[in-house]
Protein backbone atom coordinates (compact mmCIF):
# COMPACT_ATOMS: atom_id res chain seq x y z
CA UNK A 1 0.00 0.00 0.00
CA UNK A 2 1.23 3.43 -0.92
CA UNK A 3 1.14 6.19 1.68
CA UNK A 4 0.69 9.58 0.17
CA UNK A 5 3.15 12.22 1.37
CA UNK A 6 1.34 15.26 2.63
CA UNK A 7 2.38 18.42 0.81
CA UNK A 8 3.58 21.06 3.27
CA UNK A 9 3.42 24.69 2.31
CA UNK A 10 6.60 26.57 3.21
CA UNK A 11 5.56 30.16 3.92
CA UNK A 12 7.71 32.87 5.39
CA UNK A 13 6.20 33.57 8.82
CA UNK A 14 4.68 36.99 8.52
CA UNK A 15 3.42 37.32 12.07
CA UNK A 16 6.69 38.74 13.41
CA UNK A 17 7.20 41.20 10.58
CA UNK A 18 5.11 43.88 12.25
CA UNK A 19 7.08 43.66 15.47
CA UNK A 20 10.40 43.76 13.65
CA UNK A 21 9.41 46.78 11.62
CA UNK A 22 8.02 48.55 14.68
CA UNK A 23 11.28 48.06 16.55
CA UNK A 24 13.16 49.37 13.54
CA UNK A 25 10.94 52.42 13.57
CA UNK A 26 11.68 53.12 17.24
CA UNK A 27 15.40 52.58 16.62
CA UNK A 28 15.58 55.04 13.74
CA UNK A 29 13.49 57.68 15.46
CA UNK A 30 15.69 57.58 18.59
CA UNK A 31 18.83 57.61 16.47
CA UNK A 32 17.60 60.62 14.53
CA UNK A 33 16.65 62.52 17.68
CA UNK A 34 20.03 62.01 19.32
CA UNK A 35 21.77 63.96 16.57
CA UNK A 36 19.37 66.65 15.53
CA UNK A 37 18.10 69.67 17.40
CA UNK A 38 14.40 69.46 16.62
CA UNK A 39 13.59 69.00 20.30
CA UNK A 40 15.10 72.36 21.27
CA UNK A 41 12.97 75.45 21.75
CA UNK A 42 13.68 78.50 19.61
CA UNK A 43 11.86 80.95 17.38
CA UNK A 44 13.55 81.97 14.14
CA UNK A 45 13.99 85.60 13.17
CA UNK A 46 12.67 86.92 9.87
CA UNK A 47 14.61 88.07 6.84
CA UNK A 48 14.06 88.63 3.16
CA UNK A 49 15.66 86.91 0.18
CA UNK A 50 16.19 83.59 1.90
CA UNK A 51 17.27 80.47 0.05
CA UNK A 52 17.78 76.78 0.73
CA UNK A 53 20.58 76.17 3.19
CA UNK A 54 21.78 72.98 1.55
CA UNK A 55 23.23 69.91 3.21
CA UNK A 56 25.18 70.52 6.39
CA UNK A 57 26.98 68.39 8.96
CA UNK A 58 27.17 71.12 11.58
CA UNK A 59 24.29 72.91 13.26
CA UNK A 60 24.72 75.48 16.03
CA UNK A 61 21.68 76.57 18.00
CA UNK A 62 21.01 79.21 20.65
CA UNK A 63 17.69 78.47 22.32
CA UNK A 64 15.17 80.61 24.19
CA UNK A 65 17.29 80.43 27.36
CA UNK A 66 20.36 81.53 25.36
CA UNK A 67 21.96 78.12 25.86
CA UNK A 68 24.33 76.98 23.16
CA UNK A 69 24.07 73.62 21.37
CA UNK A 70 26.21 71.96 18.73
CA UNK A 71 24.32 69.31 16.74
CA UNK A 72 21.77 69.10 19.53
CA UNK A 73 24.30 68.63 22.32
CA UNK A 74 25.08 71.35 24.90
CA UNK A 75 28.44 72.96 24.30
CA UNK A 76 30.49 75.74 25.83
CA UNK A 77 31.40 78.88 23.94
CA UNK A 78 35.12 78.41 24.53
CA UNK A 79 35.40 75.01 22.83
CA UNK A 80 33.00 75.74 20.00
CA UNK A 81 35.54 76.76 17.35
CA UNK A 82 37.67 73.65 17.87
CA UNK A 83 34.67 71.31 17.77
CA UNK A 84 33.35 72.88 14.56
CA UNK A 85 36.80 72.52 13.00
CA UNK A 86 36.82 68.84 13.95
CA UNK A 87 33.37 68.24 12.47
CA UNK A 88 34.16 70.08 9.26
CA UNK A 89 37.45 68.22 8.88
CA UNK A 90 38.76 68.34 5.34
CA UNK A 91 35.48 69.20 3.67
CA UNK A 92 35.91 71.30 0.59
CA UNK A 93 34.53 74.77 -0.05
CA UNK A 94 30.80 74.57 -0.60
CA UNK A 95 30.43 71.65 1.78
CA UNK A 96 31.59 73.50 4.92
CA UNK A 97 28.10 74.83 5.63
CA UNK A 98 27.31 75.59 9.26
CA UNK A 99 23.66 76.21 10.10
CA UNK A 100 23.16 78.87 12.74
CA UNK A 101 19.80 78.81 14.48
CA UNK A 102 19.42 81.67 16.91
CA UNK A 103 16.33 82.50 18.94
CA UNK A 104 15.01 85.82 17.65
CA UNK A 105 15.41 87.60 21.01
CA UNK A 106 18.92 86.34 21.83
CA UNK A 107 21.34 89.20 22.40
CA UNK A 108 24.51 90.15 20.56
CA UNK A 109 26.56 89.35 23.64
CA UNK A 110 25.61 85.71 23.08
CA UNK A 111 25.42 85.27 19.30
CA UNK A 112 28.30 87.42 18.06
CA UNK A 113 31.05 85.25 19.61
CA UNK A 114 29.33 82.21 18.07
CA UNK A 115 29.38 83.83 14.63
CA UNK A 116 33.04 84.67 15.16
CA UNK A 117 33.81 81.06 16.16
CA UNK A 118 32.09 79.69 13.05
CA UNK A 119 33.96 82.16 10.87
CA UNK A 120 37.30 81.34 12.53
CA UNK A 121 36.68 77.61 12.08
CA UNK A 122 36.29 78.15 8.35
CA UNK A 123 32.58 77.45 8.28
CA UNK A 124 30.26 78.83 5.66
CA UNK A 125 27.64 80.52 7.75
CA UNK A 126 23.94 80.17 7.00
CA UNK A 127 21.49 81.94 9.29
CA UNK A 128 18.33 79.86 9.55
CA UNK A 129 15.48 82.35 9.38
CA UNK A 130 11.93 82.60 8.15
CA UNK A 131 10.80 84.55 5.13
CA UNK A 132 9.73 88.05 6.11
CA UNK A 133 6.27 88.56 4.56
CA UNK A 134 5.41 91.83 6.29
CA UNK A 135 6.97 94.19 3.77
Amino acid at each position, binding site marked *: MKIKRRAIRADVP*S*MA*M*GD*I*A*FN*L*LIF*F*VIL*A*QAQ*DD*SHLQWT*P*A*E*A*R*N*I*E*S*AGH*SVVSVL*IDTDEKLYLNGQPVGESGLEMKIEELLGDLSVGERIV*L*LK*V*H*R*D*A*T*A*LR*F*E*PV*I*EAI*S*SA*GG*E*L*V*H*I*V*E*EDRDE
Partner: protein
Amino acid sequence: MKIRRRSSNLLIEPPSSATGDIAFNLIIFFLVCASVQPDSGRHQTLPRSEETEEKQEKDKNIEVVVKRQVTLVNGDVVPATQFAARLTALLAGKPRPEDKVVVVKSDDDVPYHFWMTVTSQIEDAGGIITLQIEEEREIQVP
Protein backbone atom coordinates in the same frame (compact mmCIF):
# COMPACT_ATOMS: atom_id res chain seq x y z
CA MET B 1 -41.10 27.80 8.99
CA LYS B 2 -38.15 29.21 10.84
CA ILE B 3 -34.79 29.25 9.16
CA ARG B 4 -31.94 29.17 11.62
CA ARG B 5 -29.16 31.57 10.98
CA ARG B 6 -25.92 29.72 10.74
CA SER B 7 -23.65 30.96 13.49
CA SER B 8 -20.03 31.09 12.59
CA ASN B 9 -17.63 30.03 15.27
CA LEU B 10 -14.60 30.86 13.25
CA LEU B 11 -12.01 33.10 14.93
CA ILE B 12 -11.74 36.31 12.95
CA GLU B 13 -8.19 37.64 12.95
CA PRO B 14 -6.94 40.74 11.20
CA PRO B 15 -4.81 39.75 8.24
CA SER B 16 -1.30 39.71 9.62
CA SER B 17 0.48 39.47 6.31
CA ALA B 18 0.03 43.20 5.66
CA THR B 19 1.37 44.48 8.99
CA GLY B 20 4.94 44.32 7.77
CA ASP B 21 4.13 46.55 4.84
CA ILE B 22 2.16 48.96 7.01
CA ALA B 23 4.96 49.28 9.52
CA PHE B 24 7.52 49.75 6.76
CA ASN B 25 5.48 52.57 5.32
CA LEU B 26 5.28 54.09 8.80
CA ILE B 27 9.08 54.04 9.01
CA ILE B 28 9.40 55.83 5.69
CA PHE B 29 6.75 58.37 6.70
CA PHE B 30 8.41 59.24 10.02
CA LEU B 31 11.89 59.43 8.53
CA VAL B 32 10.70 61.78 5.80
CA CYS B 33 8.88 63.91 8.38
CA ALA B 34 11.98 64.04 10.57
CA SER B 35 14.20 65.19 7.72
CA VAL B 36 11.90 68.02 6.60
CA GLN B 37 12.93 70.87 8.85
CA PRO B 38 12.84 74.58 8.04
CA ASP B 39 16.42 74.72 6.79
CA SER B 40 16.20 77.76 4.63
CA GLY B 41 18.09 80.87 5.47
CA ARG B 42 20.57 83.53 4.47
CA HIS B 43 24.14 82.78 3.55
CA GLN B 44 26.55 85.23 5.12
CA THR B 45 30.16 85.48 4.15
CA LEU B 46 32.34 86.86 6.89
CA PRO B 47 36.07 87.33 6.64
CA ARG B 48 38.10 85.38 9.17
CA SER B 49 38.67 87.34 12.35
CA GLU B 50 41.95 89.15 12.71
CA GLU B 51 43.29 90.66 15.88
CA THR B 52 45.55 93.15 14.18
CA GLU B 53 43.98 96.48 13.50
CA GLU B 54 44.42 98.26 10.25
CA LYS B 55 43.58 101.76 11.27
CA GLN B 56 43.94 103.33 7.85
CA GLU B 57 41.65 100.80 6.17
CA LYS B 58 39.07 101.14 8.91
CA ASP B 59 38.92 104.87 8.48
CA LYS B 60 37.94 104.39 4.85
CA ASN B 61 35.23 101.81 5.53
CA ILE B 62 31.61 102.51 6.33
CA GLU B 63 30.89 101.97 10.00
CA VAL B 64 27.47 100.83 11.18
CA VAL B 65 26.74 100.86 14.89
CA VAL B 66 23.74 98.75 15.85
CA LYS B 67 22.00 99.79 19.03
CA ARG B 68 18.96 98.16 20.58
CA GLN B 69 16.47 100.05 18.43
CA VAL B 70 18.42 102.40 16.17
CA THR B 71 21.35 102.24 13.79
CA LEU B 72 24.10 104.75 13.24
CA VAL B 73 25.87 105.03 9.91
CA ASN B 74 29.24 106.72 10.24
CA GLY B 75 28.05 108.25 13.50
CA ASP B 76 24.70 109.56 12.26
CA VAL B 77 21.41 108.11 13.45
CA VAL B 78 19.55 106.77 10.43
CA PRO B 79 15.84 105.84 10.62
CA ALA B 80 15.03 102.26 9.68
CA THR B 81 13.07 103.39 6.64
CA GLN B 82 16.06 105.26 5.20
CA PHE B 83 18.78 102.80 6.18
CA ALA B 84 18.84 100.73 2.99
CA ALA B 85 18.77 103.78 0.74
CA ARG B 86 21.55 105.47 2.71
CA LEU B 87 23.80 102.43 2.46
CA THR B 88 23.11 101.97 -1.23
CA ALA B 89 24.08 105.58 -1.81
CA LEU B 90 27.29 105.23 0.21
CA LEU B 91 28.30 102.02 -1.56
CA ALA B 92 27.39 103.24 -5.02
CA GLY B 93 30.63 105.07 -5.57
CA LYS B 94 32.80 102.15 -4.47
CA PRO B 95 33.39 99.66 -7.27
CA ARG B 96 36.24 97.72 -5.60
CA PRO B 97 35.19 94.86 -3.25
CA GLU B 98 37.68 95.96 -0.57
CA ASP B 99 35.96 99.34 -0.41
CA LYS B 100 32.57 97.75 0.11
CA VAL B 101 33.51 96.49 3.57
CA VAL B 102 31.02 97.63 6.20
CA VAL B 103 32.23 97.41 9.78
CA VAL B 104 29.34 96.37 12.04
CA LYS B 105 29.59 97.09 15.72
CA SER B 106 26.73 95.97 17.97
CA ASP B 107 25.76 96.78 21.51
CA ASP B 108 25.55 93.81 23.86
CA ASP B 109 21.77 94.01 24.19
CA VAL B 110 20.91 94.09 20.48
CA PRO B 111 18.36 91.35 19.73
CA TYR B 112 19.15 88.90 16.97
CA HIS B 113 16.08 89.72 14.86
CA PHE B 114 17.07 93.40 14.68
CA TRP B 115 20.71 92.56 13.99
CA MET B 116 19.58 90.20 11.23
CA THR B 117 17.41 92.90 9.64
CA VAL B 118 20.29 95.39 9.64
CA THR B 119 22.92 93.00 8.30
CA SER B 120 20.52 91.70 5.62
CA GLN B 121 19.99 95.24 4.40
CA ILE B 122 23.75 95.84 4.30
CA GLU B 123 24.28 92.70 2.20
CA ASP B 124 21.35 93.50 -0.08
CA ALA B 125 22.89 96.94 -0.66
CA GLY B 126 26.11 95.24 -1.77
CA GLY B 127 28.14 95.63 1.39
CA ILE B 128 30.58 93.08 2.80
CA ILE B 129 30.05 92.67 6.52
CA THR B 130 32.88 92.64 9.01
CA LEU B 131 32.09 92.29 12.68
CA GLN B 132 33.92 94.38 15.19
CA ILE B 133 33.81 92.59 18.53
CA GLU B 134 35.33 94.11 21.60
CA GLU B 135 37.59 91.75 23.49
CA GLU B 136 37.25 93.44 26.90
CA ARG B 137 33.62 92.44 27.40
CA GLU B 138 34.02 89.82 30.10
CA ILE B 139 36.58 91.38 32.38
CA GLN B 140 35.51 90.96 35.99
CA VAL B 141 37.09 92.89 38.79
CA PRO B 142 36.94 91.03 42.11
